[in-house]
């Protein structure tokens, strides 16, 4: 896989993760360490 394909494939996953993280930034426990 060429370098530009690696970058594109990575962005195809990372960008939706960023978007969904922003949309779902409600209260959470941060791994259960007592904040939620």
């Amino acid at each position, binding site marked *: 896989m060429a370098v530009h394909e690696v970058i594109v494939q990575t962005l195809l996953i990372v960008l939706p993760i960023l978007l969904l993280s922003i949309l*779902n930034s409600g209260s959470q426990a941060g*791994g259960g360490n007592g904040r939620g």
Partner: protein
Amino acid sequence: MFAAHFAAGLALRTARSSPPTATLLVGAFLPDFIWIALAGLGWDKAGSPTASDAWSHSVASILVLGVVYATVALPRGSHRGRLLLFAAVLSHLFLDALIHPQPIELFPTAALRATWNLWPWGQERQLLGFTNYFVLQAAVTAALAGIYALRARLAGIGRAGVRATLAALAFVHLVT
């Protein structure tokens, strides 16, 4: 599967004492991140009949990835939080075992692999020109997104966020 991995991570996000959304979603895609890295190095390949992506997508690889990720990503988190992260990584195995370019192997270089191969069936076009793969993934994504939508309020996610998330999931499924 692609959109379904996001949906799996989001469904886990609604669990009590959930880790942050991004941490869960990265876990749900961890085997693909590893695959991309290995494919970039020319090691782990998919898409050709003789290629193998077992170093990132075998049962053993994903179990190891899950344990390592749950330990590293939440070093001071609760046992429950780490369990949810492990489940996020493991969800990748269950979803890809269903349909994948190649049957999932037990471990890299193993002759033991899933006895079913739905990939050729998945490429067939049915109603309205959609492939079976598209329809199957839509059904799985919808089921997981349904769990997310029903439980999102418990996780403190507002209605606007839920609607936007469902729209984003639908968009991701349609364009990929």
